[in-house]
Structure formats: structure tokens, C-alpha cells
């Protein structure tokens, strides 16, 4: 029998400490939609998405009701469109079909307008990449990603240069809304095929036809649990985080299995994420401060984050049958009240964020930079992140928003879950020659494992 204390603990986690299921994402294979005309492909894409995920929102709402836990986002990820549209081209038409399908079934985002070009770019992928900025401008719900590097392939610097251009152009086309187009695009190293989170979700070609992946959350729960530790040493801190992550993940596992059952889909993975929101009490930065920093960004931040990220994984792995996705603490600046506050006061800088990405999931995320930042500098930031990911055999990502007409000290407003961000300073020294050289940075020696 469950004790009263345990029942109240669960109720408090949900009611007072923002425990929620951050996303239930259905991955849908679109390989059967491949046709020789863009119109035919677009129609099949629309039909497959609306057929497979037509009940996603109502089922998620039913589960939320039954267990009394909010399910914040309902999303769909699809097979990378660079593959689906390679035969027909007309990528924009497919994107519009995705957008219409997403509106029809009532989800908030659809991911998979993506290309995997970590080693080389084919002709059709080049045409696809050219279409990305305009698609981010002309659609509401379509998210895009590009994998520019992997531990096995190294870093494709042509793709890195291309990703920098896409970010600049998407931000320019949506400059009236502080460059929100760039907030729907992410450049990856070691992209994963079962990520439920946007903007980087896509459905890998090795996946089943319909798969449910769930991302959990709960920074507020972890922070509250840590408040009870007092002056306990860091072994105690790690233990408390592990126990809390276990409980959070068990709820994710329960929801994922139920959703898969009711939607006649396979259960994929639970993503052991600590995903913040701009709400007070739902911040990863505040956990790091609770561990013992005056402000996030202080020396010691990377060590505290390593402890947090590792403990979340250790607690979560035992709680779920299958763990995957990005799994770890997220540090998106615009979506975390504590990060925003630290960036505004100058406590947190881009260079420190880069160091933090070496020990956590996932990368430089939702960071607003001055609109006049050159595309070479943005590409060089992507290359630096890719290098961290490739050498450490982990996923890293860059989602930067160059905000046209605004500079350091001003603020970009994206609204909703994307939040608002202070514009952060970027080192203005030129990396143009590095970027213009092209070619590939070879895979590191430890990639040769066979």
C-alpha cells in the first residue's frame, strides 16, 4: 500500500514544483510517401501524418487527465525530408503539407525538415538546404535540423558553413519577430534518431513505423529536493538528484507505455531530460545555484553541471526500460528564468556556456546574438560545438538567433515556451579563413573502434 506521505509527495511535485511531461512525441516513418512528383509526395505526407497521429492530442489529454499530470507538448517527428523528397524535389511543398497536417491534428510543432550531411552533401540535399530559411519563414510549426558532424565521420565544414548561412537568413526573413525562424532550426553533431524535443526531433530511418518517445521534466522538483540537503556534501547531493530523477522518469515511462498502447504505436524511449521553462521555479540554473554557486556562470558551474547531468542519468536509467534521445540537463538560455537573469547581469557568458555543453545535454541553445554577427562567426561557433561533440562522443547542438536591429543589452521576445532572451556578446574576431577553407575535419583517432 502506498503511504499517505508518498501520495502527498507526488501531488506536491505536480502542483507546486512544476513536475510535468514535457512532450509526447510520435515519430512517424515517411519512407512510403516517397513519390516521383512533389504533389504526390506532399499528399502522402499529409495523409500519413494525419492518419497516424490524428488521435495524438486527444490520447495525451486523456492520459494527463487520468494520472493528473500535465502533458505540455504534443509533437510529431518524421523521417528526414531531405530523404523523403530526394526523388521528387519540391521540398517547400512537402513542408507546407507538414505544416497543414500539424495544424489539422492540433500539435504545436512538427520536426524532421532535416538533413544528415555529416560527411558530404548530395545534390538533392544541397537543394533541400537552400529551401530551409524560406520554409522556416513560410510555415508556423515546422522545425528543421541538420547534422553537420559525427564522431565516426568528423566535421563536414561545408555543412557547417551552410548551417551558419541558414541561421542568418532564417533570422533575417523573420526579423519582424526578432528572428524566430532561427529558433526553429538547430545544427547538430552526433544527432540522435529518437529525440522527442524540438527543434531537433526527426524520425530516424532505423526506427519502426510509429513510435512514441517521451521527454520528462522537473527542474523544480530537483531544486526542492536539494533544499532539504542543507550543508550535505556533494555525494549526498548526487544521491538526492538520483532518487528524484528516478521518480520523475518512472512517470515518463508510465505515460510513454500508455500512450503507445492507446495509439497503437511502439514504445520508443524516455528522454531523461531536465528541461526548464521560463516560469519561476522551473529552472536548471537555480539547481546549480542551490548546489552552491552565487550565480550560474561562476567558476564551478561546469563541475556542478557535470554532477547534476550524471546523477540525472544514473537515476533515470534504472527507471525506464529504454532510455534515449538527448537525456540530460538542458541549458537553453531563453527558456530558463535563472539563465536569463544570469546572462542579463553578465554573470553568464557565451564562453562559459560553451564549456558547460561539454558535460551536459545538449549545446548552445536558444541564445540571442547581435543581428550584425557575421555568418562566418556563427559557423565558427557551430564548428566549436561540433568539435566538443565529436571528441566527447556526445550530441551537441547550436540554436542561435541573430536578432536583426538589436545589439548587446537589448532583448529578444519570442513568446510562449521559447521565452525571451537578452542578447549576448559574441567575440568579434574573424574566423572567416577557417570557414572558407571548406573540406572536412577528420574523425578523431578514438572514432576508429572496429
Amino acid at each position, binding site marked *: 500500500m*502506498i503511504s499517505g506521505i*508518498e501520495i502527498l509527495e507526488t501531488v506536491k511535485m505536480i502542483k507546486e514544483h512544476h513536475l510535468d511531461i514535457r512532450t509526447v512525441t510520435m515519430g512517424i516513418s515517411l519512407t512510403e510517401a516517397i513519390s516521383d512528383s512533389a504533389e504526390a509526395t506532399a499528399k502522402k505526407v499529409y495523409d500519413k501524418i494525419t492518419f497516424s497521429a490524428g488521435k495524438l492530442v486527444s490520447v495525451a489529454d486523456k492520459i494527463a487527465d*487520468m*494520472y493528473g499530470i500535465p502533458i505540455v507538448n504534443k509533437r510529431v517527428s518524421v523521417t528526414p525530408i531531405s530523404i523523403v523528397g530526394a526523388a521528387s524535389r519540391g521540398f517547400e511543398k512537402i513542408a507546407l503539407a507538414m505544416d497543414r497536417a500539424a495544424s489539422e491534428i492540433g500539435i504545436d510543432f512538427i520536426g524532421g525538415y532535416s538533413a544528415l550531411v555529416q560527411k558530404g552533401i548530395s545534390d538533392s540535399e544541397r537543394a533541400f538546404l537552400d529551401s530551409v530559411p524560406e520554409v522556416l519563414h513560410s510555415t508556423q510549426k515546422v522545425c528543421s535540423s541538420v547534422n553537420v558532424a559525427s564522431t565516426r565521420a568528423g566535421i563536414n565544414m561545408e555543412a557547417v558553413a551552410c548551417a551558419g548561412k541558414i541561421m542568418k537568413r532564417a533570422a533575417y526573413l523573420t526579423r519582424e519577430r526578432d528572428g524566430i525562424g532561427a529558433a526553429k532550426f538547430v545544427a547538430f553533431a552526433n544527432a540522435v534518431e529518437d529525440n522527442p524535443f524540438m527543434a531537433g526531433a526527426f524520425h530516424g530511418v532505423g526506427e519502426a513505423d510509429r513510435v512514441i518517445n517521451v521527454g520528462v521534466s522537473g527542474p523544480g522538483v530537483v531544486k526542492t529536493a536539494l533544499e532539504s540537503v542543507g550543508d550535505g556534501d556533494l555525494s549526498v547531493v548526487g544521491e538526492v538528484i538520483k532518487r528524484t530523477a528516478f521518480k520523475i522518469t518512472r512517470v515518463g515511462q508510465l505515460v510513454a507505455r500508455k500512450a503507445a498502447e492507446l495509439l497503437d504505436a511502439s514504445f520508443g524511449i524516455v528522454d531523461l531530460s531536465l528541461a526548464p521553462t521560463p516560469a519561476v521555479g522551473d529552472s536548471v540554473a537555480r539547481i546549480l545555484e542551490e548546489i552552491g554557486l552565487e550565480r550560474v556562470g561562476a567558476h564551478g558551474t561546469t563541475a556542478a553541471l557535470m554532477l547534476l547531468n550524471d546523477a540525472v542519468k544514473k537515476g533515470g536509467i534504472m527507471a525506464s526500460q529504454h532510455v534515449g534521445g538527448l537525456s540530460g540537463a538542458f541549458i537553453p538560455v531563453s527558456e530558463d528564468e535563472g539563465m536569463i537573469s544570469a546572462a542579463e547581469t553578465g554573470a553568464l557568458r557565451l564562453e562559459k556556456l560553451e564549456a558547460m555543453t561539454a558535460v551536459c545535454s545538449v549545446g548552445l541553445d536558444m541564445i540571442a546574438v547581435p543581428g550584425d554577427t557575421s555568418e562566418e562567426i556563427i559557423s565558427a561557433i557551430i564548428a566549436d560545438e561540433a568539435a566538443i561533440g565529436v571528441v566527447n562522443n556526445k550530441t551537441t547542438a547550436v540554436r542561435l538567433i541573430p536578432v536583426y536591429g538589436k545589439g548587446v543589452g537589448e532583448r529578444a521576445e519570442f513568446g510562449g515556451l521559447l521565452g525571451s532572451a537578452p542578447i549576448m556578446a559574441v567575440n568579434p574576431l574573424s574566423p572567416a579563413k577557417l570557414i572558407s577553407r571548406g573540406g572536412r575535419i577528420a574523425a578523431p583517432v578514438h572514432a576508429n573502434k572496429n
Partner: protein
Amino acid sequence: MKAFITVIGRDKVGIIAEVSSLLAERGVNIEDISQTILQGMFTMIMACDISDESSFGELKGALQESGDKLGVEISVRHADIFNAMHRI
């Protein structure tokens, strides 16, 4: 289905009567009940068996309405969420 109902708020006359008569009207069997005052707040937990699962949404709405009337917070959750979180 097994469910837990929690009632949290300021103690007053008639809370148990109101909630249990609401459950009786809907054929929900109360299997266990406990109440205590925690940090000055009245806290009641009821373990229930809801035979008609399809009426869960309606029951939830009715409990919330009662809660509003009594000035307490009443919620009902499937037992699985507590089992998942607290039992291996």
C-alpha cells in the same frame, strides 16, 4: 480502476460527508481513508475503486466543483502514477 483522491485545504465541517456522498452517488467504493492535519492544513487521502472507468472525467470535474465549494483542493489520480513513482 484503483484511484487515490486527495483533499488538501483548511479544515471545516462537512468535508468528508460531502466527498463521500458524491462518491456514493456515482457508485465509487471507498476502500481506505486517512486524514491528518499537516502544517495546519487538513489533508485527506481516499483509496477508491472506480468500477466505471468511462465516468472518470465526469467524476474528476464533480470533485473539483465540490472542492471549489468547500474551499479545498480535491484531485483524483489513477493509482498507477503513485505505484510507478514509489514502487519498483
